[in-house]
């Protein structure tokens, strides 16, 4: 104590002079550090969005020359397209199925793996592997497993059920949806698992000891101690996952190609086809804005209703 006081005394005026004279240069310094990243984001994601506001109201179409002003026609065409509406429904359905399954499985895995046992580290290392694989490859791997003439899934199911199984996993409704959910669940369950496990391990053991002394049953302990404790983590994991799940594109592209017909079109896939294989760029932009606004509404609701009350 006395030492540091003795040392700091002669330096104190120096430091004070510094803070007084360098307020301005501090201001310059902090904004200089922020500038490059902020400018990059402005250039690559904000500027294109502003540019697209112009594209929205003109006719920007590689099949039609010129950019004539056409007002709200782009919006009207998208809204009137039954495939657009269908793709929104598919997106919502797949998102709910994916995130719900991943959450329940991830929670179960976290509860099983929160206890220490031999080989736990290896098991966790294997469980998280899917997180580091490109969704394209995940789609490819599941397509190989499920494919009708070649994949082993139907064969194994046949052995299990003792009759021939000929399910077209990638081409028949509702199996194509099941296949897409399988691939997504395979890849993203560890996301939920890892976050929930971090939540579970952060619960101090004395809480459980107290509950055990009071003779609280296992189910009540889970419901009234564990769940409230990790509720913020649960909401965070589900929110992050939901926001990514609604963008679903890669596995659709590889596994079903949106087919059969337009059955497995998600919103992203529909807009991709509209913009980049049919080159109706203005119409696709209008659709993208509608999708963006719908997404923002979902985000607002999630953050306002769920995340904020949970954290305060």
């Amino acid at each position, binding site marked *: 104590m006395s030492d540091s006081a003795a040392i700091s005394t002669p*330096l104190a005026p120096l*430091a004070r002079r*510094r803070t007084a004279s*360098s307020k301005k240069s*501090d201001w310059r*310094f*902090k*904004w200089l*550090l*922020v500038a*490059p*990243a902020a400018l*990059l*984001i402005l250039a*690559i*994601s904000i*500027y*294109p*969005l502003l540019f*697209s506001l112009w*594209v929205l109201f003109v006719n920007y179409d590689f099949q039609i020359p010129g950019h004539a002003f056409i007002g709200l026609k782009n919006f009207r065409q998208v809204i009137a397209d039954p495939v657009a509406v269908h793709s929104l429904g598919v997106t919502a359905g797949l998102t709910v199925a994916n995130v719900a399954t991943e959450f329940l499985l991830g929670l179960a*895995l976290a509860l*099983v793996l929160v206890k220490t046992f031999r080989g736990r580290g290896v098991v966790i*290392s*294997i*469980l*998280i*592997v*899917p*997180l*580091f694989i*490109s969704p*394209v*490859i995940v789609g*490819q*791997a599941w397509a*190989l*497993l499920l*494919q009708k003439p*070649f994949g082993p899934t139907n*064969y194994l199911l046949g052995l299990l059920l003792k009759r021939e199984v000929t399910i077209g996993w990638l081409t028949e409704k509702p199996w194509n949806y099941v296949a897409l959910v399988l691939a997504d669940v*395979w890849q993203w369950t560890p*996301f939920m698992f*890892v*976050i929930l496990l*971090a939540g579970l391990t952060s619960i101090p053991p004395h809480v459980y000891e107290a509950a055990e002394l009071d003779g609280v049953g296992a189910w009540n302990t889970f419901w009234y101690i564990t769940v409230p404790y990790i509720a913020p983590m649960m909401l*965070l994991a589900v929110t992050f996952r939901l926001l990514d799940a609604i*963008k679903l*594109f*890669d596995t659709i592209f590889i596994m079903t190609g949106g087919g059969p017909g337009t059955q497995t079109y998600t919103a*992203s896939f529909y*807009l*991709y086809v509209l*913009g980049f294989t049919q080159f109706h*760029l203005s119409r696709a932009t209008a659709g*993208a*804005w509608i*999708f*963006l606004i719908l997404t923002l509404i979902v*985000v607002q609701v999630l953050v306002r209703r769920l995340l904020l009350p949970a954290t305060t």
Partner: protein
Amino acid sequence: MSTVVRRPRRSRIPYGRIAFLSIYMIFVLAPLYWMFITSIKPSDDYLAVPPVWFPAEPTIVHYTAALFAYRGLDGLVNSLIVSISATAASCFFGTLMAYSLARFNTGGQHLSFWVLSQRFLSPIAIILPLFLNYRMLRLQDTHVGLIIAYTVFTLPVTVWMMFAYFRQMPRSLEEAALVDGCTRWRAFWRIAVPLAAPGIVAAAVFAFIACWTEFFFALILTSKTAFTLPTVFRAFLGFQGAQYGEASALAIVSLVPSIILGVLAQRNLVRGLTLGAVRG
């Protein structure tokens, strides 16, 4: 005399948990195993019934075909160039911004949340106008174009991970350096950055994996020259049937680097996944 009735003790071995975990492990490993087996299986074994679980004569023909005939090697090189450059740029600019946000609270909460919100923007909303602009600027199908796009797309991750890292780092050393007459820049570059090196490495791993596995931007912004590894898989669509081996071989080549990096960085996984919001 009353006899003490002992309730039968529940067995110590949790069979239910073991069964659940085993089934789930099979679920995780099955696609990887089948993909690997397919990549070394002679084409004649594809349609065999029952399926060939392990080929009698493994072959590497699919690997050479995938790498050379299908230009997988070019994709691999492009992926390396783009992912490493974008990771470096993202970590550099991200660390600068994160330091400013953490130490000076620059722009208040608005700036940091604006950066975070970029993480959740739908790529489809940005890609249409970006594609048009890239065509005008001749950045379409160039390495530079994709590097810039990937830098921005990984910035929210690097900024937020480093933001969290700097906030839990004590400022005392930097302040001592300032008192000793260091400039702000030197205190940052010579003291804060070396101390934050483990955080930067962790952020770099996750940025790299994000770039390495990215498909959507690469699909639209590249075609014949700057195409990355994941986009090579387009070649195997449509020809359903003959290219199982090539597709699997390419997949195995592509997934090995990112899995190794990911498992090595596993200690930082929770922070990486939640952008620093949760400490694992």
